[in-house]
């Protein structure tokens, strides 16, 4: 339970960075922190205290493996989610780079030409 609360607190840190910071790179970092907070939560959901890593070796008994290992599915999901997060972060950084070339600043307030 403590761990769940901590991941949600981390998500709060990410959302704070995203909303409160004017520097685009800090917004990107906030988004990445938020992303990883959810990933951590997902891993924590599959965790069982004292269980073995979910690696099935030749000769292992499948039934004993199912009883004794952590849930492997969230780990597979997190891998996918990390890859997606990487793609998103790369695209964001590329856009920040382009905007910096164009306006010479990273401050969102000093380039805002759009009106919502």
């Amino acid at each position, binding site marked *: 339970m403590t761990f769940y609360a901590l991941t949600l607190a981390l998500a709060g840190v990410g959302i704070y960075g*995203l909303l409160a910071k004017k520097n685009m790179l800090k917004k990107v970092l906030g*988004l990445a922190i938020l*992303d990883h907070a959810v990933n951590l939560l*997902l891993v924590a959901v599959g965790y069982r205290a004292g269980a073995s890593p979910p690696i099935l070796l030749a000769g292992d008994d499948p039934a004993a493996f199912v009883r004794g290992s952590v849930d492997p599915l969230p780990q597979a999901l997190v891998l*996918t989610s990390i890859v997606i997060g990487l793609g998103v972060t790369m*695209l964001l950084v590329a856009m920040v780079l*382009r905007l910096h070339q*164009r306006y010479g600043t990273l401050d969102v307030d000093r*380039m805002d030409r*759009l009106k919502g």
Partner: protein
Amino acid sequence: MGTYIPVFVALPLLAGFACLLLKGPAPRATPWISVASMLGLLALAVGVRGDAGVSFAGGWGVRLSGDGAFVVGIALVLDGLSRLFLLLVAVVGTASAVYALRYLEPEPGLSLFHVLFNLLVAGMNGALLAGDLFNLYVFVEVASLASYGLVAYRTGGTEVEAAFKYLVLGTLASTAILLGITVLYAATGYLNMADLSGAIGRGGVPPVALLFASSLFVLGFGTKTAAMPFHAWLPDAHPSAPAPISAMLSGLLIKTLGIYALVRVLYVVVGIDENVRLVLTVLGCLSMWGGVLLAQAQDDLKRILAFHSVSQMGYVLVALGIGSWLGVAAALFHALNHALFKSALFLSAGSLERVTGTRRLSEMGGVFRRAPATSVGLVGACLSISGIPPFNGFWSKLLILIALASAGQYAVAVIAAGAALMTLVTFVKVQHKAVFGALPARLEGAREVPAAMYVPVLALVALCLLSGLLWPVGVDGLIGSAASAVRAPADERPAASVYVETVHGRPTR
């Protein structure tokens, strides 16, 4: 049964990679690859027979029977609801691909544009067919990432800024969706949507977890729909994209990632309760009026259209808030109609920009004689969105009002009718300023756009008219089977059991 289902995702995916490979040797071929892949999808979507089917990715899937029956494997599920949206994606995608042939000049980035275009379609089709929540999330991200790139295609300051804003809000929405999926997985141990809905139906999930997950899904998919408090990205992102992409984003993306996903997850998986329905109604009312009022202040034609997308999605959300079979049917009918007329409008706006050299309404005017085909297309689409009979927009708005009245929500019906009136006012102004009136001296030399640009618009407008005139003949079967996949007409059995039967291939009891 169902062996053709993966083709809906594989075909645009392969076409996208083909465009990437041909970037060097034959960049001129890439627009035609997009057209070919869209025509293939159109043939497939029209030709699909039979009610429903399941296909397992890689042919690997196990159905475990017994009391706690569940499915192992990556399932792609085609039912009435998916088929309606697959057809829409194919129709609007074909029109946009043909339009892009002449709209986009041959330029170095053109091949990459078509890579992203095909990825966008593959992501949308994948989201429509995904049988489990996590694959829904992955395909939503594939389509979203492609759309972020396409919004920034022109790489000017405004475009990249709009794309940055869109990306940040879109990723925030995706994170909410992933968090919702995590909550449901932690509570049930299932990801497959049929198994989840079975587990939730058996009542083993604490109500607070369901409420938390529903809120996260409304936040996430609501942002993808651009419902009113979460709409801030849309009026910047949609006008910044090139016209065919504006048509794809406003016509399709907010429906496949937004409305479809909301219907699928809230109605079929979680099971919609009164609180969530009330939230949808409130979001819908806000969007209807907020979108239409903010549109009044705009002079940029594409921004007006973008704000009206927010407004029109409001009608769909209000209809989804009713919760009856009629409400769902009306919502889906309006989503179908909006896809047709809004993509026609955005393509017309692109043509008008080509004819007049501006997107500002105040600088347009009187091009009816100079560009008759473009003008007819724009006027037809305007009549459709303002709800003039016999165009389709009239019938779906009427159906929404009937559904609201029959559910006793008279106040909401009045709000919706008022917003419809405001829409009419805006579009009378738009068509008057854009194509009628006096021709400015600056536009003496204006010429009609090439046929490849006005034919798709006229075809979409013809479909608007056909869907308005013939909806008792063909359209109601399509809408009816889509709505029945979500809600049983007489409520004689739980809504979700139809979907569970589709996935498990037999009655669950």
